[in-house]
């Protein structure tokens, strides 16, 4: 039996409900469904979907391969551009990327289900452990990759394909980065993130060292000394502070920690959640936290965002998803004070906001929402040490078009660089492209082969 008791508790639901609530958000297409869905693709020329994909997957081609009964060939088309195509199929906000660009939107306001088709093909290849790439002959070059997230894995894989030796350093217990510790549980079921890591690493030539944190266990200078090149694919470890009264009280939690704990929990019943929950923020993290709080049995979940609906980073689809699960999204409200009772969260006082000459301004009017748990999802920051004299801008690493940093033989990509988009698929593109750049740099440094008569 579940409970509606106040406070922050686990086991709010009967056990069976957890399984239902956290099952696959978009169940896999079966063969028939995939054929029907793939038939809708027009095989556009210079397809807009492909242009919209940060990794430029040849979408019309992979869909045509599905429709002609060649899902394995289809998977290769996907992996050629994006070795994490399996996870991207699950977590990409396709509604703002490929599927938004689909010409079927113009024709009938319903795009081809590109994401689900991508999952169909990649699932088949991964289930059959079909490996498409073999390592080139060893180059003798060694590359250190910091961070086993999407950027680091994509970079390491492409480097391994080119014959380079890779060592990945990651501070956490498991590889995958946000694929493993971020992302709502219902988007990556059945331990998919780890299966994908195994699939990527099976190329060989990649060693992963866990529990190794930059700045604590090693420095960038150490790596530069030991390796021929370094790729930095770090995530955003810091969380923005509210800077209001009561912020440190029991019951005020970081949404990212909540999301990570959910991902690591097998049953989800052990994850404690409030009866009334307020989530502060307007991005994907806010939605993921709010929806999952509701799925854990919270009676009332409210997202409070300090700007309007049109300013939210969360896509329309995600907002609708939240609404469909019973989450209330309120706009133009910013936190003013956490109300406490017995040193625990009892509610949150918010003030109404408005735009004055384009600047966010408080109207002076306030209100209180009762809550026993408050999640902060107001953005993350890049917090790293041990990077020496690396050039930063706005708290992120400065890179050129190829991902090269201000330091010799050091590249970077993903969330930690200037312009990082907080998207798995963009991180993959960064890692892949940096690997190509590193490979080119190695080739350029090679002595010219002399002609033999």
């Amino acid at each position, binding site marked *: 039996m579940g409970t509606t008791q106040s406070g922050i508790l686990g086991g709010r639901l009967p056990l069976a409900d957890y399984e239902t609530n956290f099952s696959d958000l978009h169940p896999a297409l079966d063969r028939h469904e995939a054929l029907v869905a793939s038939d809708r693709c027009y095989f556009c020329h210079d397809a807009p979907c492909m242009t919209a994909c940060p990794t430029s997957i040849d979408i019309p081609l992979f869909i045509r391969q599905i429709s002609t009964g060649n899902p394995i060939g289809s998977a290769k088309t996907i992996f050629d551009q994006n070795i994490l195509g399996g996870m991207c199929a699950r977590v990409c906000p396709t509604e703002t990327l490929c599927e938004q660009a689909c010409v079927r939107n113009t*024709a009938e306001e319903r795009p081809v289900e590109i994401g689900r088709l991508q999952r169909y093909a990649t699932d088949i290849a991964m289930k059959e452990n079909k490996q498409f790439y073999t390592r080139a002959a060893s180059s003798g070059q060694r590359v250190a990759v910091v961070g086993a997230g999407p950027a680091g894995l994509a970079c390491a894989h492409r480097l391994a394909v080119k014959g380079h030796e890779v060592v990945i350093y990651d501070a956490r217990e498991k590889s995958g980065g946000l694929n493993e510790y971020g992302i709502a549980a219902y988007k990556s079921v059945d331990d998919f993130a780890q299966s994908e890591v195994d699939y990527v690493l099976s190329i060989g030539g990649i060693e992963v060292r866990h529990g190794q944190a930059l700045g604590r266990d090693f420095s960038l200078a150490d790596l530069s000394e030991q390796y021929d090149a370094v790729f930095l694919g770090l995530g955003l470890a810091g969380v923005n502070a509210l800077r209001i009264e009561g912020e440190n009280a029991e019951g005020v939690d970081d949404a990212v920690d909540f999301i990570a704990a959910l991902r690591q929990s097998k049953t989800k019943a052990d994850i404690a959640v409030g009866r009334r929950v307020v989530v502060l923020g307007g991005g994907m993290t806010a939605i993921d936290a709010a929806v999952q709080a509701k799925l854990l049995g919270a009676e009332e979940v409210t997202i409070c965002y300090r700007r309007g609906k049109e300013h939210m980073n969360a896509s329309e689809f995600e907002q609708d998803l939240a609404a469909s699960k019973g989450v209330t999204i309120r706009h133009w409200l910013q936190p003013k004070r956490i109300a406490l009772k017995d040193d625990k969260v009892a509610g949150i006082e918010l003030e109404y906001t408005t735009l004055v000459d384009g600047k966010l301004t408080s109207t002076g009017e306030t209100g209180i929402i009762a809550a026993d748990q408050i999640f902060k999802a107001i953005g993350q920051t890049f917090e790293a040490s041990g990077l020496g004299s690396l050039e930063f801008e706005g708290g992120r690493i400065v890179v050129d078009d190829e991902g090269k940093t201000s330091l010799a033989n050091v590249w970077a990509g993903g969330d930690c660089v200037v312009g990082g988009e907080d998207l798995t698929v963009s991180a993959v593109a960064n890692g892949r492209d940096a690997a190509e750049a590193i490979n080119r740099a190695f080739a350029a440094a090679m002595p010219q082969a002399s002609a033999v008569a």
Partner: protein
Amino acid sequence: MADLRNNFVGIKSPNPFWLASAPPTDKAYNVERAFKAGWGGVVWKTLGEEGPPVVNVNGPRYGAIWGADRRLLGLNNIELITDRDLYVNLREMKQVKMNWPDRALIASIMVPCEEQAWKSILPLVEETGADGIELNFGCPHGMSERGMGAAVGQVPEYIEMVVRWCKQYTRMPVITKLTPNITDVRKPARAAKAGGTDAVSLINTINSIVSVDLDNFAPNPTVGGKGTHGGYCGPAVKPIALNMVAEIARDPETYGLPISGIGGITTWRDAAEFLVLGAGNVQVCTAAMTYGFKIVEEMISGLSDWMDAKGHRNLDDITGRAVQNVTDWQYLNLNYIAKAKIDQDSCIKCGRCHIACEDTSHQAITQFVNGVRHFEVMEDECVGCNLCVNVCPVENCITMEELPAGTMDQRTGKPVDPNYANWTTHPNNPMARQAAE
């Protein structure tokens, strides 16, 4: 309401939609269901001669090809004529005709190419009260190996001979069913006419291997590891059938010979096309085998509504109306000039028109205009070939617009000539006939 009543060589039916001789018309149970559903007539599945009936394979009899969304486009069939006893069929035909006096019931017949065989079966059929007979000179598989079906239909002399026997031994109207597995369909049609046939029906199915099982390297349908060519039918064969119907309709030697149109008719529109190309009625099979007998409702209402909308009162108003517009290539007007035009409001920017034109035609459609994805016809390159219209996924997004006489054709730099001129008088034609001075 348009009057859809049909009188085909004296055979009356409430509408021009008959079920063709095929699996759907093999027994009373199916035919009764068809008449309940509204079909105007039925050509009973082909009867063979008295004695032990033919046998069919016990494995798969059909193969198919599909379009998008697995819509069946073409069906291939290796089933033979009826494998039921002749007298069982005759009994059922008689009963069905008694139950449905207002519907047409035609007996399809295929017996050996001997006078006695035809002479024997015709009185038996006549006794059922059937409205007419259809001579099956078409089946391309199985029976043709035994000197029947297409084996007869491919020899005009045999056709004439058998038709003559039938006209001699029965009072029933004779419809001669033609095979498309020949080079010039006018020859068998002329032979049938010479033999005295009342009408021809066409097309029967086309020799085909519909697909190959790539695991077993055997044609589909595969029976015990082997396959054989079958008879191809369904929407895919409609264009071939339309042409053959038109060829007979406009042949001076067979002009006016009643035609029952067959071949891939799936919708009212298909049926109307056969009618205007000279068919007096139509026969349907694959569409019913795909969707069931109910589809006739759509055909009846569609044809009727179209006729009402266009002011056609009855079938005579439309039958053969397009025949005069079927001509030889050499008589097409070379001064007629059309250009493709893309309606930007309905364009979804898939780019298919561009790549089709760019890769395979005349490089006459833009991809970018001022750096923006934009598809537009370059009139100075467009030859009016219509390929872009055909590959565009949005109906009516691209249209062919006629250049009025006198306007400048930007491709040739010449004004459009108002006069009709064809290849026969074109200066580039070495055989050009000099226009009379």
